[in-house]
């Protein structure tokens, strides 16, 4: 347990790490839009990602970039369309037992892995067994399975997945790359080899090509591919002969390579470069708000300063989120009103919008009531000679957003102590021991069940969860478990709305901004669309001749 816990903490730290602000709002859709060119087969594209996976095994890693870079190689049982709805992929159909605890899935019979092995029930079981195996040290995939108890092979192409209680998020979970299906033989290569990215063998539209750590990975077309989901942009083999993903972490370099035509697409265009991409006649920009938990401050409700709801409310209402977001992201990102992003399928509570506007007078009044009436030489509020200091651990460097928040909070007397550290053990220590006042983070996941990992009383940092507000409320637990038990999306949305409202009313969280994926693409690339998780899908893409 302890090694798995360490591994999961590492994944969390990756999420906490200061990511450079990437942003924009609005337009979905994709790629070049010239109508006079016909789709063609052949050609290749080069795409720059802003990060390189630390570990390439999606069963082990919690990194978004692992899920993105392995999507072309690994297929899943279920496909989640860009609109959030689910449809069959390698599972051709499924039945859910009346008590919601058992899923019986029929599998496609015409699928082969890149190594020639047949895809069948035993292969699926091998994958599920690998995810929950102790040696895998799964940072995320195992957690996604929730109350999972096991998989049974009930026919050559039929499996039964069981849970200890009703678990409706399972089908969405099964659609993620984290539960991507690898050839059983490749899984036996061992954790190190799977992590290294050289042993990835799936059944996807692209095969694993040459990989040079620190530089790039090549993907080559799988000519046998004929099992795409209906909702995909394409059927049969992919149009592109190959795709190259380069890892260019420096923003200016990545954007420069895109504008100069050295690469055909680039991820994470920073806010201050979006206008340049838009006005470049050779380029176009695709963007989509990332579903899941928005970037937010989680306030430690169980110890220290923020046990007093008045101080939490003051922090929530006294922070001018709207102004900061507009300024820092130069109008390309929207502020958040709920802990969930509006693009999270059937779970966002829109009624929270504008329900807790910036109110510095109210914040001041609340702080006065809570006894923080003094002022020190630097203008921060004090009580009994102690400064109103908010300890905020940061792994890596503070973002521009958090620096702006620090400057703004000073106006109402809060000192936001942005405590940056590059020592992963030190930071996870603070988080596990609850020795902090607030943690700022976001977590992408296209399902409302993301709320469970942030607010279920059992999802503590020590156990690998994200309950950083340290909420332990039986009522909240009941709502979240009811949502996991309910099969109807409407019923689940009702429960999720209650949790979202509660989190704002209790000021357990201060939602900040809706992170937005912004991808820059050369106009000669067509058919590139963003998946539900806001990563580009290369499968349907093609490149114009010349």
């Amino acid at each position, binding site marked *: 347990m302890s090694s798995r816990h360490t591994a999961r903490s590492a994944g969390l730290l990756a999420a906490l790490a200061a990511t450079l602000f990437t942003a924009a709002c609005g337009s979905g859709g994709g790629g070049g839009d010239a109508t006079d060119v016909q789709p063609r087969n052949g050609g290749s594209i080069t795409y720059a990602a802003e990060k390189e996976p630390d570990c390439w095994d999606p069963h082990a890693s919690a990194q978004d970039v692992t899920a993105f870079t392995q999507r072309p190689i690994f297929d899943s049982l279920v496909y989640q369309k860009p609109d959030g709805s689910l449809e069959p992929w390698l599972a051709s159909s499924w039945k859910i037992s009346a008590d919601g605890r058992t899923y019986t899935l029929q599998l496609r019979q015409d699928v082969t892995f890149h190594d020639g092995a047949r895809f069948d029930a035993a292969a699926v079981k091998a994958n599920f067994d690998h995810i929950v195996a102790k040696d895998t040290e799964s940072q995320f995939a195992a957690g996604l399975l929730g109350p999972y108890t096991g998989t049974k092979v009930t026919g050559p192409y039929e499996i039964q997945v069981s849970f200890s209680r009703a678990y409706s998020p399972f089908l969405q979970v099964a659609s993620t790359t984290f539960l991507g299906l690898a050839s059983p033989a490749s899984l036996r290569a061992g954790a190190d080899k799977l992590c290294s990215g050289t042993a990835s063998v799936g059944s996807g539209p692209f095969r694993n090509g040459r990989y040079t750590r620190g530089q790039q990975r090549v993907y080559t077309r799988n000519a046998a591919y004929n099992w795409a989901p209906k909702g995909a942009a394409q059927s049969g083999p992919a149009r592109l002969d190959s795709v190259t993903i380069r890892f260019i972490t420096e923003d200016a370099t990545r954007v420069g390579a895109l504008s100069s035509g050295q690469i055909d697409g680039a991820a994470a265009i920073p806010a*201050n470069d979006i206008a340049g991409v838009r006005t470049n006649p050779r380029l176009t920009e695709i963007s989509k708000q990332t579903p899941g938990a928005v970037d937010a401050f989680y306030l430690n409700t169980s110890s220290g300063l923020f046990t007093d709801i008045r101080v939490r409310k003051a922090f929530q209402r006294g922070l001018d989120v709207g102004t900061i977001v*507009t*300024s820092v992201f130069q109008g390309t990102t929207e502020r958040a009103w709920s802990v969930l992003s509006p693009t999270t399928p059937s779970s966002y509570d829109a009624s929270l919008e504008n329900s807790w506007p910036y109110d510095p007078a109210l914040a001041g009044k609340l702080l006065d009531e809570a006894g923080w009436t003094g002022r020190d030489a630097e203008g921060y509020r004090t009580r009994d000679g102690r400064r109103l200091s908010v300890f905020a651990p940061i792994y890596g*460097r503070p973002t521009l957003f958090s*620096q*702006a928040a620090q*400057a*703004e909070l000073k106006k109402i007397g809060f000192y936001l102590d*942005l405590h940056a550290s*590059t020592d992963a053990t030190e930071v996870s220590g603070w988080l596990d021991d609850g020795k902090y006042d607030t943690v700022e983070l976001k977590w992408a996941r296209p399902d409302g069940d993301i709320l469970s990992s942030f607010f279920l009383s059992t999802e503590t940092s020590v156990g690998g969860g994200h309950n950083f507000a340290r909420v332990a409320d039986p009522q909240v637990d009941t709502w979240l478990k009811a949502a996991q038990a309910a099969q109807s999306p409407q019923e689940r949305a009702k429960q999720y709305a209650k949790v979202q409202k509660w989190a704002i009313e209790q000021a357990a969280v201060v939602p900040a901004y809706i992170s937005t994926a912004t991808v820059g693409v050369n106009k000669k690339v067509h058919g590139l669309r963003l998946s539900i998780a806001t990563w580009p899908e290369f499968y349907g893409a093609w490149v114009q001749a010349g």
Partner: protein
Amino acid sequence: MLVAAIHPALFAGGGPAEGDLHATLQGPSGRHWFGTDQLGRDVFTRVVHGTRYSLSMGAAATGIGVVIAGVWGLAAALGGRVGDTLLMRAADILLALPAVLLALMVVLITGRGVFGVTLAVAVGTAPGCARVIRAQALVVRRSGYVSAAVGLGVRRSAIIVRHVLPNTLAPLLVLATVTLGVSISTAAALSYLGLGAQPPTPEWGAMLTEGQGYLGQAWWIALFPGLLLVLLVLTVTVLGRDAQARSDARSWS
């Protein structure tokens, strides 16, 4: 610049961390001489306040470095053949690494931040200075007045304190002024890499990093701290050279 470092408020009224989010990325104007940065902070104010960090980090690093080098060099010169060989071979090994690389390794131990970087730069400059000091101490040790003192039966410790040390000190000070420029730029370089002053500290190296992403949109954020850094290093180096030239001239007279 010295005045700006000691009392920045004389030049710039506002606080270096105070910003107006409604006035970000504004070009140089009568109101904001050097424009405003991505958080609406006045770049001129930040540059003025930053003088203190660059100058003090450079000066402290040089001071510590020269003291380490002084002890090191004297010990080598006076420590007998075995001590000399050991200490100077150690210096040779460290000199094989560029000062910046050595400093980078030391930061790993001392940790990031203003203090860590200062110490790292000090350690980075020490081996080179130690060689110079050893050479000077060897010259002094073989000079007539030291031989005379030895002949008179003066105790060894007294000779070191009364004769060798004072006569090695003058070149040490010249060396310090020459090193200062290098130390300032090394400290800024480490801050630029994110190892030194942390935001929102208005340190020039850190400001360069922050401004880098905005070069196409707001050149003034990175240009002015860079320009001032160049000016400061040039000034200090020219002064150091001048001091060196004078001290050389004196020793000829």
